């Protein structure tokens, strides 16, 4: 029964594709002899290939659904099981730490440079994860805050000679400030409307940077941005890359540390509750607007810090680095990685940023392959590469009894 329907559906799809591709696959105009060739064999080919592709696609989709029904919520991703298991946690984290420590010394500078980009996206992803994954606010203008950070470093250095380490905290504050300023008017909107307006705001910032020549140097951008110094010491080019690499590692660790604490606090609970049910949340005394604004502003804080690192690494920035495309990429990192899951976001950033770099081998089809992979992930793993497993509060009854005994 189901199989019959399946075949029927696939036949229709195949037929439809045959019609769609008819003009390009079948008709061929011979310009020399002024005749038209009909390549009927191609038509048959398209039909057969589409039919089988559709059948396999459906087969995997159904298998996926069956599995989901069986497992329900119990399928905790492997990596979480590893991390929860005391025997594996230490060795696992040890291997990961050793890998990242050794990385810049083992691989050539080019790879270190790519890894830095990926790690900056980890930071951005974790920041956006607060906004999208935890608080459930679809923000398509996230890149605006990234730009704020990058331009803050470039301009403050250009005009006042402020160094990387001075600008980093300043830009974090600037990010928060811009987050509040932009969030204030737009956070009254919800869902799609919020997405559209944030998209607009992101573009406004870029267009301002492009056109306010006297302020931002317009489309020419700003160059000669110095790399970070180590207590006043400037490394050579290669060592600078290594140095920035470790700065980013440090920042990523700090991000994970703070985001984790936020997530497991009063405010983190409020974000998750707000995502679940706004009305009930307000009835519990949670200020909807303030809670959303906090998420938005905190996300912006991390974006701005990411921007500073980006500017320091590339030493040249212009508005073209901060297009809507960038926002989409960061959003993909969060969604493909696994919304709400820090480990997922890290995996997402590494895959999404490293993959296109290494796919340069198949350069022409790079974006095509990349897009196809994303679609496949979304179809077969709708929760992202690594599903979010929230640390829930568990109450230990015995613990409480002891607690009370000591109190009385």
């Amino acid at each position, binding site marked *: 029964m189901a199989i019959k329907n399946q075949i029927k559906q696939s036949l229709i799809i195949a037929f439809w594709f045959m019609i769609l591709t008819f003009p390009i696959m079948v008709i061929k105009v011979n310009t020399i002899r002024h005749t038209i060739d009909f390549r009927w064999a191609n038509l048959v080919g398209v039909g057969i290939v589409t039919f089988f592709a559709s059948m396999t696609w459906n087969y995997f989709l159904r298998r996926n659904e069956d599995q989901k029904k069986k497992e329900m*919520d119990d399928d905790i991703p492997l990596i979480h099981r590893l991390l929860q298991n005391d025997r594996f946690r230490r060795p696992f984290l040890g291997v990961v730490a050793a890998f990242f420590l050794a990385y810049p010394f083992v691989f050539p500078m080019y790879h270190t440079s790519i890894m830095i980009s990926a790690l900056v996206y980890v930071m951005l992803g974790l920041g956006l994860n607060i906004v999208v994954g935890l608080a459930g606010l679809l923000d398509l203008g996230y890149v605006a805050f990234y730009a704020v950070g990058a331009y803050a470093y470039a301009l403050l250095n250009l005009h006042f000679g402020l160094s990387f380490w001075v600008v980093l905290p300043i830009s974090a504050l600037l990010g928060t400030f811009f987050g509040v300023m932009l969030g204030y008017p737009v956070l009254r909107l919800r869902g799609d409307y919020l997405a559209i307006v944030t998209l607009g705001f992101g573009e406004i910032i870029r267009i301002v940077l492009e056109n306010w020549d006297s302020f931002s140097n317009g489309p020419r951008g700003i160059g000669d941005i110095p790399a970070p110094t180590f207590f006043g010491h400037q490394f050579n080019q290669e060592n600078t890359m290594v140095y920035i690499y470790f700065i980013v590692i440090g920042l990523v660790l700090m991000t994970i540390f*703070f985001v984790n*604490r*936020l997530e497991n*606090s*009063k*405010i*983190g*609970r*409020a974000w*998750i*509750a707000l*995502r*679940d*049910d706004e*009305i*009930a*949340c*307000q*009835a*519990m*005394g*949670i*200020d*909807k607007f303030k809670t959303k604004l*906090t998420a938005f502003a*905190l996300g912006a804080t991390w974006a701005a810090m990411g921007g500073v690192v980006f500017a320091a690494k590339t030493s040249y920035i212009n508005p073209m680095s901060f297009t809507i495309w960038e926002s989409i990429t960061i959003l993909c990192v969060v969604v493909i990685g696994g919304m709400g899951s820090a480990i997922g976001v890290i995996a997402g950033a590494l895959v999404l940023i490293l993959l296109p770099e290494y796919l340069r081998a198949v350069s022409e089809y790079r974006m095509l392959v990349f897009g196809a992979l994303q679609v496949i992930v979304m179809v077969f793993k709708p929760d992202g590469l690594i599903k979010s497993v*929230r640390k*829930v*509060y*568990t*109450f230990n*009854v015995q613990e*409480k009894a002891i*607690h009370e005994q000591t109190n009385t």
Partner: protein
Amino acid sequence: MNKPILNVKNLTMSFGGLKALDDVSISIEKGQIAALIGPNGAGKTTFFNCITGIYEPTKGVVEITPPGKNTQSLRGLKPNYVTERGIARTFQNIRLFHGMTVLENVMIGRHCRLSSGIIKAMLQPPSQKNEEQKAVTDSYEILEKIGLEKYVNDMAVNLPYGAQRRLEIARALATDPFLLLLDEPAAGMNPQETKELDDLILWLRDNENLTILLIEHDMKLVMSLSDWIHVVDYGKKIAEGTPEDIKANSDVIKAYLGDESDDA
């Protein structure tokens, strides 16, 4: 001298042409268990929504006099501020946080009584840790009071229906209210669960110093629990009085019991 704890005067709520509430006045005394009854669509839930700030009433006065405090108006306040002032509610269609455990649901209720902000959440000084720990134990104690402690670490969605309704009450209680608004708390409960709910509501009034206003269709429950009953029909208040008065009131019988006798 003793002002009513909740005083609603001439409340009107229009949705376009429809007057869901039309000039309704209701006042609730401290320590009362009051009921708001009426046929489906009479405007009962809308009444709750107007008090708790989910809707802003088209017209009318909503005043509270919390025990030991001055009279203040609630009109135009956002729902979270109404909750902060000490009014908690449950929902007719259960609105628990599905992705959270039972304990966490109650902890969300504690939210507005906790003081730690973002900076403290990130730095986790001892004061913040203690507060979190206290929120956990407080929430557990509330669950014990309501009799849900055995579910403490379960996901809220996995609870039996009756327990979900009780969890809504536990969560409301966590906000430290003086007035509790219950929207059809017995809906979907079996007779045993309804009996337990009856006991719980009485217990809450007597031991937690709560004033309770409940919307309910279960006439047996309403008649046995309530000190005072308000009846609305088509957005208009048609009667109020003791359960005996209401049972004998011909308008009520016509409007409510006549229409919905199978519900009673």
